């Protein structure tokens, strides 16, 4: 089914809102399952998403461990003498953090993989969002994969200079990654400068009014899905909302 990019945006905002508000692993797991169903519904290659997102696993596991180790309230599950090592609350908080980040990453991919960035700008502009802001958002979405590719190029180039990244001690590795971060950001800023020059050379914002060759039309299904998503989100946030 082909949905309007605005409908997808509303669904994604609803899911992200719930992911930020929910703080129990059970609810977050249900939300994660819903996200996976949506990804399958939009026929996005789940294996492809997994292969690109699995690089985040070390970060997710680190966050999980930090929560498990430092949150000491609740029933002790594992103790050393009288000191609790792992508590029920720590385990729940760690799982929640992992699921929450997982949901946000997966829904972000849902937006970037299934929507043409031009359609996205068009949709936002039709919602009276200033074209400049809509364009900025679309450029961000457009350049996320480029940034990822650039990082992967850097990692390849570092290894091709003979550095065995897997064997570098953690302390050195962190130092190395920090030193790689600056050129990456600087390179991105240079790219942004060139992009803005190219846009101005092609008369970006030369007239105050823009016209569009194409117009997006919201169908009945779009309206129904948007209304259902918003109402469902409000009910999930506060079940007493109708009373």
């Amino acid at each position, binding site marked *: 089914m082909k949905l309007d990019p605005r409908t997808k945006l509303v669904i994604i905002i609803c899911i992200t809102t719930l992911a930020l508000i929910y703080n129990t692993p059970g609810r977050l797991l249900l939300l994660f399952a819903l996200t996976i169903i949506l990804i399958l519904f939009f026929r996005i290659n789940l294996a492809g998403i997994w292969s690109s997102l699995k690089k985040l696993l070390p970060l997710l596991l680190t966050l999980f461990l930090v929560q498990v180790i430092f949150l000491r309230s609740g029933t002790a599950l594992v103790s050393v003498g009288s000191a609790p090592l792992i508590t029920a609350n720590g385990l729940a908080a760690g799982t929640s953090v992992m699921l929450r980040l997982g949901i946000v990453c997966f829904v972000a991919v849902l937006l970037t993989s299934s929507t043409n960035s031009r359609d996205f700008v068009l949709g936002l502009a039709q919602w009276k969002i200033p074209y400049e802001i809509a364009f900025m958002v679309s450029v961000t979405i457009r350049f996320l994969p480029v940034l990822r590719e650039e990082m992967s190029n850097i990692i*390849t180039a*570092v*290894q*091709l200079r003979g*550095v*065995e990244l897997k064997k570098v001690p953690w302390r050195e590795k962190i130092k190395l990654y920090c*030193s790689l971060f600056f050129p990456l950001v600087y390179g991105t800023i*240079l790219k942004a400068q060139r992009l803005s020059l190219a846009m101005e050379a092609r008369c970006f914002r030369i007239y105050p009014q823009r016209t569009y060759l194409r117009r997006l039309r919201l169908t009945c299904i779009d309206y129904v899905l948007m209304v259902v998503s918003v109402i469902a989100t409000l009910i999930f946030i506060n079940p007493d909302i109708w009373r």
Partner: protein
Amino acid sequence: MAFIELKQVSFFYPGKKEPVLNSVSHSFGKDGITAVVGPNGSGKTTLTKIMVGIVQPNSGEVFLDSLPLKKYSLAEIGRRIGYVFQNTSHQFFCATVAEEIGFGLKHLGKESEAVEEKVEFYLEYFELTAYRNVFPLRLSYGEKQRVAIAAVLANSPDYCILDEPTVGLDVYRKRLLENHLKKIVRLGSGLLIVSHDYNFVKRIADRVVRMENGQVQEGSG
């Protein structure tokens, strides 16, 4: 003896019907300079990327010094084969030109004085001294090309693969590069150059491999 050997190597880019490389078998020795020539899209760059393990072939196998390339990590390959990308911007990751040239040596555990000495030599040789503290991506195309080549050569690899090394270089700097490449070959390194610069290839190459439609059409020299 073959230093890099390709056996029945085929490669398809996802979504493309025609293979970029179609059952390529060829050996590259460590002696002298080999040039790979051919029209755009004939698979020259893909071939070199497969030779250094950046891209994995769909079928067939690549051998480095008689051992399957799969047995080596990318860093182990990098220590033996220096690779200059076609788009040199892809290989810069340091904050200054001097750091870029010295990066490999520093991380291979060389003494800082030896690193400094080699960096100075390459900065001077490729006339980059004025740019030693400049961010590499700020340089012009030709300057980036020189930094990329210097950074790879500074590691003194056994074999070098340079993808379009003369793009953006003026006649004088092409001559400088030519002299230096001939020198490192005399010192025992092997060299493979992918180039469209016919005059450069004619002057420098001991062998020419022509690629067309994803296959090695002929080898000469």
